[in-house]
């Protein structure tokens, strides 16, 4: 139950941040990515504010032995720069440039009833399922190669 409240509190803050910062608006995001057009640097300020607060906050929080509602911190451990990271980031960036939405703002826009937002989120979820299927197939194939 406490973990639910942790998730809800963080989600509310995140959604408020996306709305206030203007990232909820795909046209504004495209305005940032369009450096050759009427460039709107606002998104750089979103990143600056978010990274600064997170960097300082993480320093303090991770000094604790454990989080408040869980026995331990769950942190990424991988350090390798693999082809999936580069291919995945490239495809994501192309999609971001095409639509002006990344996952957070698309979810934040769901409450406003735009058909484009529904279509984008449905396609995004389908893409996520496809990526999981693809990754599973890759790891099964790798396992088979190693076994043979």
């Amino acid at each position, binding site marked *: 139950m406490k973990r639910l409240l942790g998730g809800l509190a963080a989600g*509310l803050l995140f959604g408020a941040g996306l709305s206030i910062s*203007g990232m909820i608006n795909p046209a504004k995001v495209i*305005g940032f990515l369009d450096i050759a057009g009427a460039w709107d640097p606002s998104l750089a300020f979103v990143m600056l504010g978010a990274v600064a607060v997170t960097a300082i906050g993480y320093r303090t929080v991770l000094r604790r032995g454990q989080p408040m509602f869980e026995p331990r911190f769950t942190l990424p451990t991988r350090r390798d720069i693999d082809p999936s*990271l580069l291919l995945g980031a490239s495809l994501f960036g192309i999609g971001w440039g095409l639509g002006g939405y990344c996952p957070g703002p698309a979810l934040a826009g769901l409450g406003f009833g735009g058909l484009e937002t529904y279509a984008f989120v449905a396609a995004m979820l389908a893409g996520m399922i496809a990526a999981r299927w693809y990754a599973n197939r890759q790891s099964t194939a790798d396992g088979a190669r190693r076994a043979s």
Partner: protein
Amino acid sequence: MENFTPLASLFGGALIGLSAVVLMLLNGRIAGISGITAGLLSFSGSVPDRGWRIAFVAGIVIAPLALVLLTGSRPDIAFVAPMSMTIAAGLLVGFGTILGNGCTSGHGVCGIARLSTRSIIATAVFMTAGIATTFIVRHLIVGG
């Protein structure tokens, strides 16, 4: 630069950072939207931490609506892409963020804040791809 909103964007960004700190302090988790969302898409059996993921996504959806009630003004949400391109964009964003283990939040905010090399490289790649795609679509194809 007529749409430039440095203060609102800086403040909104700080709230996103606060969200990441709160999720780490309370649940010990990285605030990566693509990973948290994809964690809900497993159809094989039960996901042990489904509850907080649903609560997190619900919070993201509810907060902008709550702000409308508080402030009386709706945020601008405008699309520059036609529907077919929006759907293609969704597929690419979904597939790419899972294949690359993160999006703007997980890599761009949390990962960079942790000085993760993987996240710094991923962010540089998706920013570059986003800027290049926007240039091609808006200046080479549409702009002529």
